[in-house]
């Protein structure tokens, strides 16, 4: 069946932990992970809930293919209401924790209430219990992981935890599992910490059975692994260069947001690119990149494992950072680098380590620092605010200093922990915040990649590239090449990507498979694993239904069509270099058509017809 058909409900207020059967009707309509957890969430949580109050819930959910032999089948998602955006939060992570949860026999874990004291959840197959975490509170992610492994004397234990940033209330805190894989966006870690839940530690040894047609599943997953291996992107490009190969690509097309999105090209892009990560250092002859790495069951292995030059100022007296750890991926490298004007690869790697060590979303963090740098250069904040830090664009020293503060919730780091929108409002310049629905942008300027403007504006979790990665088509030509400067046809393209992505995010598979796979490759794997028939059309419909359900929650939470917009800088200030010279984001040319195609009203509200078509809950 794919699903274990069991969910674990954890009430943090009274300390109870109980098993419940999975709602199979919902599973058939929403598949798993992102979709199914959202269906549970909207059924159980008032959209007006305080995101950091006890009535918000947090769901960790696997998909039907999580923990199976399907390539990349190791994903899980965290669903809650976001304290950063006020919208639904849904953050997806790889590593090994999701597969471990499934191997322990659970499709999802629902956390509700708030514990009076710090606790962690320990799961060993059917056994699940809350345990005191007073000794873990105040510890970093890396310390917590180590302490839990020592405590349980089990090297196979998989740990997801929050760091000091979340405890301090940083609004874009992540949940980190397996030391450096993150459910990163929208502050899901902040919600977890607000519940006094420090960590989830899981050991699962039951295996994942219950596959509908095991022989067919083995055959189809083997066939599809070959497709990934034979594809030049997933078989060679991603494992060799990782996502960071995009740094020079996006810079070349003039869509690399630079210095808080004031510019669209960064003169130092090459120094912080994938190619630079391969270059031997002068100091020790070793490159920044040590090796690539894969998550559970992954046959792509795009992950980066890196080291920092031991003589670099950031770590010269800190041998604890001399070892290998999770290296720069493109979005993090962009936010910490071009967006802050910093071209120091070692500094960016160190800052990325800190984001993992204390659980911060590096995209939101880097973008917030970029906004703070512009505020500083405009004179809106001074060294009195920053505690003496000259927070100027391009300063690696300043970037390192404010990262250490924010990770620990100290000094000016508390202000940076508010995120870009609240920081810019605090200092009187809301126009300098590069956000949608209060979430910071990722690494593509919509003046040079028009579809991404519509993607950001309509994303159900605020500015995000992973709701609809039209870069794939507009820049990389996957599955077909479209003109990045053209707005015609982009509403259709964005909707196709949004719906397909929602389906993939609900399956347990990684979205990166879609550089080689389409739903034509994915649906047969679901069909072989899950009860019922799962043709491509049904999987696509599930994706569309999920999108509408998330939108419905957001509207009920108080968002409106007016929130489907972009910062004035991107709508009014034209790009001044590269192919997009003279262009602004043409959102007004795309949004009405997008609403029409979605079946929404002219002001972006769902209609009764749409609710009925997708059988959405009242």
């Amino acid at each position, binding site marked *: 069946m794919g699903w274990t058909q069991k969910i674990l409900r954890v009430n943090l207020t009274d300390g109870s932990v109980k098993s419940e059967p999975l709602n199979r009707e919902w599973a058939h309509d929403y598949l798993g992970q992102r979709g199914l957890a959202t269906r549970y969430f909207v059924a159980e949580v008032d959209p007006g809930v305080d995101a950091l109050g006890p009535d918000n819930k947090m769901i960790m959910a696997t998909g039907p293919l999580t923990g199976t032999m399907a390539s990349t089948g190791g994903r899980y998602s965290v669903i809650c209401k976001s304290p950063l955006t006020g919208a639904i939060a849904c953050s997806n992570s790889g590593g090994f924790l999701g597969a471990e949860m499934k191997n322990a026999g659970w499709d999802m874990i629902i956390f509700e209430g708030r514990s009076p004291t710090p606790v962690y959840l320990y799961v060993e197959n059917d056994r699940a219990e809350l345990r005191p975490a007073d000794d873990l509170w105040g510890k970093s992610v890396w310390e917590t992981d180590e302490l839990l492994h020592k405590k349980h004397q089990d090297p196979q234990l998989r740990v997801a935890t929050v760091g000091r940033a979340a405890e301090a209330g940083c609004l874009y805190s992540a949940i980190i599992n397996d030391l450096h894989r993150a459910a990163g966006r929208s502050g899901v870690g902040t919600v977890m910490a607000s519940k006094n839940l420090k960590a989830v530690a899981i050991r699962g040894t039951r295996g994942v059975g219950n596959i509908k047609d095991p022989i067919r599943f083995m055959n189809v997953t083997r066939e599809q692994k070959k497709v990934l291996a034979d594809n030049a992107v997933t078989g060679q490009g991603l494992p060799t260069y990782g996502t960071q190969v995009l740094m020079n690509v996006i810079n070349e097309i003039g869509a690399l947001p630079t210095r808080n999105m004031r510019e669209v090209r960064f003169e130092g892009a090459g120094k912080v690119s994938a*190619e630079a990560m391969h270059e031997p250092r002068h100091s020790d002859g070793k490159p920044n990149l040590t090796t690539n790495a894969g998550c559970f069951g992954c046959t792509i292995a795009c992950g980066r494992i890196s080291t920092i030059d031991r003589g670099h100022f950031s770590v010269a007296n800190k041998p604890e950072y001399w070892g290998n750890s999770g290296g720069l991926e493109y979005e993090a490298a962009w936010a910490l680098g071009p967006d802050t004007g910093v071209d120091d690869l070692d500094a960016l790697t160190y800052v990325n380590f800190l984001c993992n060590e204390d659980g911060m979303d590096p995209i939101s963090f880097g973008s917030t620092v970029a906004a703070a740098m512009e505020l500083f250069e405009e004179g809106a904040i001074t060294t009195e605010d920053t505690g003496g830090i000259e927070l100027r664009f391009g300063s690696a020293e300043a970037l390192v200093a404010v990262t250490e503060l924010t990770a620990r919730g100290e000094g000016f780091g508390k202000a940076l922990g508010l995120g870009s929108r609240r920081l810019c409002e605090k200092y009187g310049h809301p126009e300098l915040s590069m956000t949608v629905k209060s979430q910071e942008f990722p690494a593509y300027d919509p003046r040079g990649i028009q579809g991404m403007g519509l993607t950001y504006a309509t994303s159900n979790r605020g500015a995000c590239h992973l709701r609809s990665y039209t870069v794939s088509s507009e*820049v*990389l030509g996957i599955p077909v090449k479209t003109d990045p400067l053209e707005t015609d046809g982009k509403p259709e393209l964005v909707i196709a990507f949004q719906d397909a992505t929602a389906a993939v995010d609900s399956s347990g598979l990684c979205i990166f498979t879609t550089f080689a796979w389409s739903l034509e490759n994915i649906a047969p794997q679901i069909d072989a694993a899950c009860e019922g028939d799962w043709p491509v059309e049904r999987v696509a419909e599930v994706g569309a239904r999920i999108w509408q359900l998330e939108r419905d929650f957001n509207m009920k939470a108080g968002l409106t069509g007016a929130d489907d917009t972009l910062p004035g800088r991107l709508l009014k200030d034209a790009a001044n270099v590269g192919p997009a010279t003279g262009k602004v984001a043409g959102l007004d040319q795309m949004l009405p058509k997008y609403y029409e195609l979605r079946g929404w009203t002219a002001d972006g509200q769902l209609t009764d017809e749409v609710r009925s078509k997708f059988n959405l809950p009242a």
Partner: protein
Amino acid sequence: MKITLKLYATLSDLLPPEARSNRVEIEVADAVSVNELIARFHVPPPLAHLVLLNGVFVAPAQRGQPGLIQAGDVLAIWPPVAGG
């Protein structure tokens, strides 16, 4: 005329020794086509996947056309890559 050629990712090794930061300035004939440059630098055709002239995508059908490249242009080429 002179143009700038950039080769990235696994194609970096095909650049001449004087190249720096994945780029080299080269002398080319006035009517040179993209495909002629791809052949001159021994880029295997299937690996000339993403071809940008001054940042603008050059479709495969355009790559044999003479006159597309002008003096001072920047031609950048990648093998199949992706990210996100």
